[in-house]
């Protein structure tokens, strides 16, 4: 008896652990080997069982962990996995988000970290929330220390199990707090971790991107987690579809490069993942919803973001915009049918209480109304562009000329851009940072003078109490008065 998953946070409220995620992560480590299982729950934990058939390195190591009695304590609970959430702290108060995961030697073992463990088992604690959705980035091999390599949950778990294996076999190597070069113990765990990265890449048919074993520390991922746009992924049937690639490019290229963009996407990410997994579940339960979501939300959003990208980055003038929009819709019949679906999608969100709509549409409407539409970030980034697109599509079908359509699109994008939600992080910036962020926004989003002035007025009204904001708004909008709307 060796490896267990804690499946209930005994003493705390329900929902403070995610044992299902741990089971999924172990399944990925086992490379989908069907011999992996869980015994009946005893107390607050379940023992992991494994009859291995997969010859791979990670499954073989997992087999060794699961089927060896290491004799750590009389209860034979050698390694206990705690799949915690973002609100977990270690016993000294350290937030799990500052370390991602850890393997703690049994209490009283005198090994480093044992003082943080009140049990006589080796604890493997890892954050299943992926740093509240922001991800854990480590040093990508071959880059000299660029911290941009995502560390998904199974990789964190496997890394910590590597430490746990050496802890329970009394084979732990030397440890230091050094980030670079990493300690011998960390180096060994990272080399093990790369075995799993190789295995996952092979399953996905991709070239493995490995972690540098010489560098230990990590940082918040500037691009968020590798997961992106899950509704688009499910609706298009692929996480690497053209639509998802465009959404990811807009996310990473247009706004996320800056401090403000980063904060914006943190908020958007948090709100988006508050409802999007439920939308994906609905699509799985009601496949007929997929065309509605694909044509009523995902493709219109992608089309409009493409227009915004072309206009905001300045390589398209008004006439260009109209021409490009028209050439992107060569068949009027298809455009009409998309407009129908767009209207159906809008009606779904607008409709008041009434007779229950079937096929999952009622549930979809509820999720969108109660979760998505309440978020200013979701409304601005995901809902308003679709409304702009619908208006443009209607005008195109009404046979507007290229220049008319282009002018309408440019005005609509300018007005939309100036309504960018203003996050609290603005108030924490220095004057130089505020100037840089505004320059960046003007370059990437706020193209017209009116959009710039409108945004500055909002910024001054919101955060004129912060010295830097008051100063820079006054510089750029003389006579405005930082706190006047």
């Amino acid at each position, binding site marked *: 008896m060796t490896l267990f998953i804690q499946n209930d*946070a*005994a*003493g*705390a409220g329900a929902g*403070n652990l995610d044992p299902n995620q741990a089971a999924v992560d172990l399944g990925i480590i086992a490379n989908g080997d069907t011999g992996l299982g869980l015994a009946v729950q005893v*107390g*607050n934990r379940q023992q992991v069982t494994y009859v291995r058939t997969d010859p791979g390195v990670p499954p073989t190591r997992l087999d060794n962990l699961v089927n060896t009695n290491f004799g750590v*304590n009389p209860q034979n*609970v050698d390694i*206990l996995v*705690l799949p*915690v*959430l973002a*609100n*977990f*702290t*270690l016993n*000294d*108060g*350290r*937030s799990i*988000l*500052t*370390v*991602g*995961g850890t393997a*703690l030697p049994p*209490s009283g073992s005198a090994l*480093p*970290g044992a*003082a*943080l463990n*009140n*049990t*006589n*088992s080796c604890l493997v604690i890892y954050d299943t929330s992926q740093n509240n959705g922001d991800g*854990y980035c480590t040093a990508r091999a071959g880059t000299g220390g660029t911290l941009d390599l995502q560390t998904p949950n199974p990789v964190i778990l496997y*890394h910590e199990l590597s*430490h746990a294996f050496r802890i329970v076999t009394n084979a732990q190597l030397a440890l*230091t*707090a*050094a*980030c*670079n070069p990493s*300690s011998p113990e*960390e180096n060994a*765990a990272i080399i093990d971790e790369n075995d799993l990265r190789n295995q996952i890449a092979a399953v996905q048919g991709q070239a493995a991107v490995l972690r540098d074993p010489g560098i230990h*520390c*990590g*940082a*918040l991922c500037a691009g968020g987690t590798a997961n992106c746009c899950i509704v688009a992924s499910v609706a298009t049937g692929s996480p690497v579809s053209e639509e998802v690639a465009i959404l990811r490019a807009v996310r990473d290229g247009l706004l996320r490069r800056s401090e403000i963009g980063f904060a914006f996407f943190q908020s958007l990410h948090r709100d988006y993942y508050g409802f999007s997994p439920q939308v994906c579940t609905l699509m799985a339960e009601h496949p007929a919803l997929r065309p509605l979501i694909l044509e009523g939300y995902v493709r219109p959003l992608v089309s409009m973001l493409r227009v915004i990208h072309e206009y905001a980055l300045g390589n398209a003038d008004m006439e260009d915009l109209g021409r490009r929009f028209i050439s992107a819709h060569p068949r009027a019949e298809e455009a009409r049918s998309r407009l129908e679906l767009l209207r159906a999608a809008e009606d779904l969100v607008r409709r008041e209480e009434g007779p229950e709509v079937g096929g999952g549409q009622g549930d979809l409407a509820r999720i969108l109304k109660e979760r998505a539409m309440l978020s200013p970030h979701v409304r601005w980034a995901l809902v308003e562009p679709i409304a702009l697109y619908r208006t443009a599509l209607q005008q195109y079908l009404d046979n507007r000329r290229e220049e008319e359509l282009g002018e309408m699109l440019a005005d609509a994008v300018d007005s939309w851009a100036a309504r960018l939600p203003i996050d609290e992080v603005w*108030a*924490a*910036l*220095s004057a130089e*940072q505020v100037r840089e962020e505004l320059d960046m926004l003007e370059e990437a989003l706020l193209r017209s003078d009116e959009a710039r002035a409108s945004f500055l007025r909002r910024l001054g009204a919101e*955060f004129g*109490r*912060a*010295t830097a904001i008051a100063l820079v708004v006054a510089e750029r909008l003389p006579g405005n008065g930082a706190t006047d709307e």
Partner: protein
Amino acid sequence: MSSAQQPPNEPRGLEGSVESMVEVEDGVNLVVRLRNPLDRALHYISDVRGMIFDPTTNRLQVRLSERGLQTPLTSIPMQPRFRVIDPRSEALITIKLPETIVKLTETPTPTGDARFQEYRTVDATSIEVDIAWAETPYYPDPREASRTENPFTSWEQDSLRISFRGGIQRGAS
């Protein structure tokens, strides 16, 4: 620290006060007003590194500092998020706290069971915020290879402690 040579009434570093503390849907937003009274920029940690809730006094300590926290050496030590505040300037930072804080029990569990404690952030009646700052930005110390101390603690020149009594404004957003 350089302030040791300054007269007692001279400002010595980062200053601040709690502006508001409001319950929101997924936790509590703590807004802190920071002031830099010096003629040079100050650098500080802007993300939560640790939280300690004392159930006997309902005091919540929020650490934007690595000092006093152990660093488990088998982990991914995440670099703090650093920010800078201009000379003679004020800034507002919003610290997002979770709805509840969960940790392992203080009492040892020799049976091998892991048991937990959970505290509601809104139950705090007093808050203490520590914010680490320095006059220079953080750079990795090339000497750190052989060291066991946390490199982010070594960077910290001092920390600002802000105490706030009065509890959390409930139900607003």
